[in-house]
Each structure stands twice: as C-alpha cells, then as structure tokens.
C-alpha cells in the first residue's frame, strides 16, 4: 500500500471500446489520472481480450488472448490498470484459471508460444483510486465537491463476479463505487439493480433483451431518485446511454438519466476542465443536470 506521496505509475490496458465507442472513458481516465499525478503508460500492441464472445465459442482461445496481453503487459512498468470491466474480468479470470492448473497453463503456453506470465497485478481503476491512491488523498484532491448530486452506482456483472476471481470487492454486496464517489462529495442512492446484467453481449444480436434488462435498470434507478448513473464499463454505458431512447420508446416512460463514467464525475470534482472529459460524447446529455447542480 503506497499511501505516501511516492509517485504511482501503472501500465494501462484501455481495451477496444476505449479507442472507439467509449473514447470519452479513455479521455477522462487520462484527464483524471493526470490531475491526480498517477502515471499511465499504455501496453504496446495490446490486442482485444475477446470479451464474452471468445469464451462463448472457445475457452482456450479466450485464455490465450488474455495470456498474450499479459505477456505484452510485461513490457511496461508497474501494475496493470484496466478501465473496462469486461477486459478486467477476462484478465483476472485467465490469471485465476491458469494459476493452479498446470495442464491448462501448458496448453495456453503452447498457443501463445511462450510461458504465461501470471505475476502482474491487474487492477481496475476503482481499486487504484480506492486502495493505492487512497480515499483520503482523493478527498483532499477534490476542488469542486459533487454535493447535491444523487448518483446511482451501477456495477453490472463482471466487476465483482464470480467470487474469488476479480477480487475487487464483495461479489454480491460491493461498496467500492459508492466509497469512491462519496469521497468526491456526491450522494449515493440505495437501489435494487446495482448488480443486475444489462445484457451487454446481446446488444447486436438480440436487442429485445437489452430493452427489457436495461429498461429494468433505468426504471429502478429512476425510482430510487437518482439524478444520474455512474458506470465503470463501456458496454454497460453503451446500453444505458445509446439505447436509452429506444428503451424509453418501448416502455413509454421518459427517464432522461445520463450514464457517466466514474472518471468523468471524479474528473469534474478534482477540477479537470470539462473539455477534457468528453461529456459531449454521451447521447443523454449530462450538461443540463451538471449546470443545474453548479458543477459546470
């Protein structure tokens, strides 16, 4: 635990979405970490983790893709910072499954033509902020507290499940998102759908699934009195934000709930200029809400 003033430096695995449909997550991560003085150096030539489709088709391929990423991550100093919940889950699952299984490890080793390095600590951004940087320091760094903003923290599936694999927080009753955003002065709401699945993997093939699952999540957040959702996964954000209009049309209810990345909200709090947070990347614009709360 380095709660001292020593510099924190990490390898950084952004994942495919952060270079495309979730570019504001990448932008705001760099903005926030820059403001907090945390160094990020991107893993050279990283490849797609395969997400859900890879292990749905072939578990060995899924393990091999993540093993290759772990090999590439050895080229950068420090623990590996991961922003996307799906990439985080795949990397942690690979480490977990290969750690005690010599046979599987040798198969994966044969597939990537080399030993599988398993020692790298893989950390989600939340973990870095909560444990390594520390909530006290985060609190001190806040220049514009998010007071008055009621946030529904949405974990989704892969940040905490299954138990013993991601080891980010309790699998069924986590509080890490609430802890982090409360340190920035926001108010969090207690609500029912924090850990429910948004249907991410089906966004292309079965949109009716998304309308039902994402619709339930939006309705629950609204009912709990939230002003906005906070997410830590580009796939969840995609469904909650890009598909919100469709959900509204299908259910005949207007939600108008912006789904912001944790780095966007924290970035605002520590004084990163709004232009560096990609707020205009959201389809459900948060500008009105943030202005109303005096945060813009």
């Amino acid at each position, binding site marked *: 635990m380095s709660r001292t003033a020593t510099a924190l430096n990490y390898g950084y695995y952004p994942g*495919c*979405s952060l*270079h*495309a*449909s*979730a*570019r504001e997550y990448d932008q705001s991560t760099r903005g926030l970490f820059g403001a907090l003085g945390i160094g990020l150096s991107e893993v050279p*030539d990283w*490849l*797609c983790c*395969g*997400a*859900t*489709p*890879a*292990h*749905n*088709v*072939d*578990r*060995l*391929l899924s393990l*091999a*893709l993540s093993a*290759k990423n772990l090999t590439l991550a050895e080229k950068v100093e420090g623990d590996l910072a991961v922003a996307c919940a799906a990439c985080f889950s795949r990397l942690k699952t690979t480490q977990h*499954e290969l750690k005690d299984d010599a046979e599987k490890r040798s*198969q994966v080793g*044969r*597939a*990537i*033509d080399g030993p599988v390095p398993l020692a790298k600590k893989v950390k989600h951004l939340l973990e870095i902020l909560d444990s390594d940087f520390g909530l006290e320091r985060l609190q001190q760094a806040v220049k514009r507290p998010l007071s008055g903003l009621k946030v529904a923290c949405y974990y989704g*599936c*892969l940040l905490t*499940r*299954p*138990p013993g694999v991601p080891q980010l927080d309790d*699998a*069924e009753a986590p509080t890490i998102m609430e802890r982090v955003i409360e340190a920035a002065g926001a108010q969090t709401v207690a609500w029912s759908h924090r*850990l*429910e*699945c948004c*249907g*991410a*993997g*089906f966004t*292309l*093939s*079965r*949109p009716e*699934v998304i309308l*039902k*699952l994402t619709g339930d999540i939006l309705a629950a957040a609204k009912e709990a009195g939230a002003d906005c959702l906070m997410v830590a996964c580009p796939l969840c954000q995609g469904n909650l934000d*890009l598909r919100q209009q469709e959900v509204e049309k299908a259910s005949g209810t207007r939600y108008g709930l912006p789904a912001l990345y944790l780095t966007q909200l924290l970035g605002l709090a520590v004084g990163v200029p709004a232009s560096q947070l990609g707020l*205009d*990347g959201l*389809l459900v614009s948060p500008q009105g809400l943030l202005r109303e709360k005096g945060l813009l």
Partner: protein
Amino acid sequence: MPRRRLARLLLMVRFCFIHPPRHYPAQRDHIVNPAKIVLSRQALNPALIARLKQLAGTSIRNCMQCGKCSAGCPMAGFMEHPPSRTLRLLQLGQNIQVLAGRSIWHCASCETCTTRCPNGVDPAAIMDALRKLWWDEQGRSEEKEVQLASRLFLDNIRRYGRQHEMRLGALFNLQSGKLFKDLALGPKLMARGKLKLTQEKNRNLAEIEQIFARIEQMRQKGKTP
C-alpha cells in the same frame, strides 16, 4: 421394480413437465415433452457428463436442484430451459433437448448463477461447454444471430487484432438481413467520433494469427479438451 424407485422415476418425469414461460415465442419443438423422455441406463450419458466436466471444470452431478441459479438468472424469462432445468435435463441424459434448444445461446455469461450456487457448480462454465459442443459438432443452431455476432467478433480480432465496431455492425446487418438495424444510431455515433470507418491493424497481427492457427492445430490433433 421396487415401489420407491418407481416413485422416484415418476418424480423425475414430473419435474420436467413444467410449462415454458408464456411470453416465450412459440418454439414448441424443443420444449420438453414428458412423453419423449425415456429414462434408462442407456439414456443417462456418462460420457457426456465427463466431457462437460473436462470442458467446464465443474460437474453437473453436484447440482441438487435448489433453483438459486434460475431464480437469479436475468435471462431466465427468455429461456425455455432456465439453468437449473438445463442441469437436471443433462443429469437425466436429455442432452439433445438441451443442445438443440435455444437456451444455451441465451446465457449472457453474467456469472450470477456461478456466484450463487451453494454446491460449487459453475453453470456459466457449463453453458460455455454446451455451446462449444454445439459449435464443434453441429455448427449452426436456431440462434443464428447470436452465433453470427460471436463469429464476426472473433473474425475482427483475427483480422485487425482489435475490434472494428463499424465492421462488426455493418457485417452483422448484411449477413443477418436486418439491413436497417440501428441505422439511426450510426450518424449520432459518428458525429461524436465514436464510430470509426477504418481500423488500423495491429503491428503484431502475425503473432495473433499464429495463436488462432496453433489452437486449430492442437484441436485437430486432439491435444486440447
């Protein structure tokens, strides 16, 4: 047959006689018809159970039918056989009902079932294993679109090293025949710089191709589960 064993058999058959969710679109072929279930030593398929254990690293034998997996499953409402029933059918050797059905393609891999199982079964991994069996032996299922999306996703990795979201969406629309799907979303995403027309190829693309090729070779030689 001793009366107790008969009673147990009847109970097993009764268990499978559960009506599918009413809002499920009519796909009657694969819905369990108790008349079609034959329970015999031959029907119980120990080879399949062993193969599933090899693929998933967890045994369906440990399922004691508490139903917690189905209770928490966000996709249960879309499934003909929710997870606990899938496991029970497999225990009874009714693998065709499971494999030829749509439910295995409806699993979202959210890991809720695996998190909540009190007896260490990993239903999410079993679902992966079942899909693998189907990919290997049959290739195509009735859930063509779920399969198409997965295939295109992996094809992108092999071709570019990373996801090319534009190509993924465009090819999905073309190949599924849903040409106008999400068409309104495209310009909004492009205006925000979220959808790129082109995707650069990774510099280590040759190494990535090798990973795919080596796994294919290993499979051909039977050196992998």
